[in-house]
């Protein structure tokens, strides 16, 4: 355990190294694509910086993939691999000083804005700081405690990238861009530092969205409102602190859209297509659900950029040629974004295209049906309200209600004179087609996080129209009160999730053990189990949320179909002995039959004992050792544990 300040400092230094690595990767691309008129604006500089940072995040994830496959994810190697990034930050920050000064001046210009704009901007900074503190302090919850921080914990402890065991084994095949960074930060510091990794990613989302707004003609009020919509969206601020990875795919997706509406001066060259394709590949590899939704949105933007969006008149043949070349370039760079994933799956599963092709166990990732036909119809019929007000299981929050509040303002005032020249309209159209595509393809999966980036493409037009209303004073003065009041209410509603934080922080300051204070009910019993069990004892884990077990127990837990076939064993106790299980941790609410069986054995045989751990649903059973064991959990160096066959 390291000190809290050190944990935060390491996470910040890590983000700086990613930025530096991004500068190194971006340097040749920057020369190729030239400059845009927006590059000297605050939003242009910040969006460019966000894009650079995300390139660094992707490049360093590729480095970590290789180190993981080599079994070299140790403290020294990771620290050494961060040095080039730090050196690059020093070098490039000196070269880009002029841009920074312009960005600083633009940020300082906030002071010359009306008071309400400054107040909203300051409140957004404060609430973001609150989410950063929550990210650092609160324990992993939900899916993060099931997979997204469990796998990194195993990788960090073992220093090796190997398939995860247990319920989420097939998830080892998915793209793990953020998870590699979590693992590296756990090696360097702790889980708090790992969770903080998402905060700069969220800021990158804000910067890219601001860049899109600026590209579409929005000014500072529109940018502040866009940030307000983003940060008050439950599906954004929830994932800023809970330990999941959804915001990284959203950031990559936003960057893919940003580059397709980025306007170089003069409008020439194919570099933006290459940038967009690379980020599209990274978004899709980070979250496979982005393939259909973001793909549709980018197709609209590609066709627009290739022809209609050009400042010159183009023939249909020239349009087709540009779209074809741009599209092929995007496809090629998309593949570049996928290379580390292909390498990882080739090495671990002998199936580079897993989980799509060549590997068993991945099909359940793509055949999800979350709701009954009746409920699905209700969801479809309540779009787009469901995206904002929806409280469906697994939804993971919704968009900010500001989207709905601002929606009627689209019809206020003057119309856009040239809709096809208007970036905001084209972005909104791309987002709308993506949402329609998603509803058609996955009607029962109501989860804005699955296609967040194209959803956010619809924000610029809303905030720009709202800005026009407020700045040009084209509406009644009291309407401004309505807009400001709505934004303040949205910010206040976002703080709802932070309410338990102050008392937990105070408890920690008093020296109390707050590890499980804000965690799920599995935390205390599984920590107790890990403290009682010896390293390498096999644990049968019948709960989704296994984060709290020690790394050796996570690595030698039930494997393959053990959990699902155990109920069919004619002599369960003998089977547990032969598989060398020493403990069974059972969530009685999710595995009631299994729990009843084990409780029956605990009452009838001394070989099974229910441990006196106080938990309403988690029951821990100790299983006596036996000389019939066929397997053993052995240490393979560092904290890496593997199952070995004891049979001669």
């Amino acid at each position, binding site marked *: 355990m390291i000190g809290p300040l050190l944990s935060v400092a390491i996470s910040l230094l890590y983000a700086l190294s990613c930025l530096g690595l991004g500068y190194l990767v971006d340097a040749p691309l920057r020369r190729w694509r030239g400059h845009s008129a927006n590059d000297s604006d605050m939003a242009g500089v910040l969006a460019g910086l966000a894009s650079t940072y995300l390139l660094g995040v992707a490049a360093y994830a590729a480095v970590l993939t290789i180190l993981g496959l080599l079994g070299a994810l140790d403290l020294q190697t990771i620290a050494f691999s961060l040095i080039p990034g730090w050196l690059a930050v020093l070098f490039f920050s000196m070269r880009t000083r002029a841009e920074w000064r312009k960005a600083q001046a633009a940020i300082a210009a906030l002071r010359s804005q009306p008071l309400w704009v400054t107040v909203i901007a300051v409140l957004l900074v404060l609430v973001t700081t609150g989410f950063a503190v929550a990210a650092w302090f609160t324990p992993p919850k939900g899916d993060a405690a099931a997979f997204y921080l469990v796998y990194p914990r195993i990788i960090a402890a073992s220093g090796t990238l190997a398939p995860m065991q247990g319920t989420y084994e097939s998830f080892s095949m998915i793209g793990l861009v953020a998870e590699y960074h979590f693992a590296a930060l756990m090696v360097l510091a702790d889980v708090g530092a790992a969770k903080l990794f998402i905060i700069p990613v969220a800021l990158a989302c804000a910067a890219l969205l601001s860049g899109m707004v600026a590209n579409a003609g929005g000014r500072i009020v529109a940018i502040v409102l866009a940030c307000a919509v983003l940060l008050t969206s439950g599906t954004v601020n929830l994932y800023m602190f809970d330990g999941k990875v959804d915001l990284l795919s959203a950031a990559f997706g936003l960057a893919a859209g940003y580059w397709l509406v980025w306007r170089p001066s003069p409008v020439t060259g194919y570099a933006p297509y290459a940038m967009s394709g690379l980020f599209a590949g990274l978004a899709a590899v980070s979250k496979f659900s982005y393939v259909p939704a973001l793909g549709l949105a980018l197709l609209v933007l590609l066709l627009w950029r290739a022809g209609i969006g050009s400042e010159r008149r183009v023939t249909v043949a020239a349009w087709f040629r540009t779209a074809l070349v741009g599209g092929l370039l995007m496809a090629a760079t998309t593949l570049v974004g996928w290379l580390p994933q292909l390498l990882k799956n080739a090495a671990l599963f002998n199936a580079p295209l897993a989980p799509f092709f060549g590997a068993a166990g991945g099909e359940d990732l793509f055949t999800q*049906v*979350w*709701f*009954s036909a*009746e*409920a699905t119809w*209700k*969801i479809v019929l*309540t779009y787009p*309200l*469901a995206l*904002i*007000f*929806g*409280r*469906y*299981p*697994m939804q993971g929050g919704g968009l900010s*209600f500001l989207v*709905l*509040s601002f929606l*009627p*303002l689209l019809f*206020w005032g003057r119309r856009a004179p040239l809709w096809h020249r208007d970036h905001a309209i084209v972005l909104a159209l791309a987002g709308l087609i993506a949402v329609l595509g998603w509803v058609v393809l996955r009607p029962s999966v109501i989860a804005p996080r699955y296609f967040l980036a194209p959803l956010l493409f619809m924000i610029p037009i809303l905030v720009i129209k709202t800005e026009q209303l407020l700045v040009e004073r084209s*509406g*009644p003065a*009291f*309407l401004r*009160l*309505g*807009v400001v*009041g*709505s934004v303040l*209410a949205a910010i206040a*509603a976002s703080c*709802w999730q932070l309410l338990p934080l102050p008392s937990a922080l105070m408890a920690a300051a008093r020296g109390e053990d707050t590890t499980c204070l804000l965690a799920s009910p599995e935390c205390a019993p599984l920590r107790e189990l890990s403290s009682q069990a010896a390293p390498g004892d096999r644990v049968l884990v019948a709960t989704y949320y296994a984060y709290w077990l020690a790394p050796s127990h996570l690595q030698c837990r039930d494997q393959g179909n053990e959990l699902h076939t155990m109920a069919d064993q004619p002599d369960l106790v003998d089977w547990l002995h032969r598989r060398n299980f020493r403990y069974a941790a059972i969530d009685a609410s999710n595995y009631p039959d299994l729990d009843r069986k084990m409780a029956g054995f605990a009452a009838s045989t001394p070989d099974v004992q229910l441990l006196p751990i106080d938990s309403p649903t988690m029951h821990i059973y100790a299983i006596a050792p036996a000389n019939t064991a066929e397997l053993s959990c052995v240490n393979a160096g560092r904290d890496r544990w593997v199952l070995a066959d004891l049979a001669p």
Partner: protein
Amino acid sequence: MKPRSKLAGILLLVWMAVVIIVFGLVMVPAESSLARVLPSAFWEARSAVYTLFYSPSVYE
């Protein structure tokens, strides 16, 4: 200011208030400590709105 613009502005203001109220209704959890504080009319309204935006999953 044209009267039509003023009327549209008032309607927009009402719309924004309705959006906030609906969001408030779906956001407050039923089992929260507010259960004792808020009047029963609030919970009846919440129940009506909440069922529009909630269904149990097939996994439950």
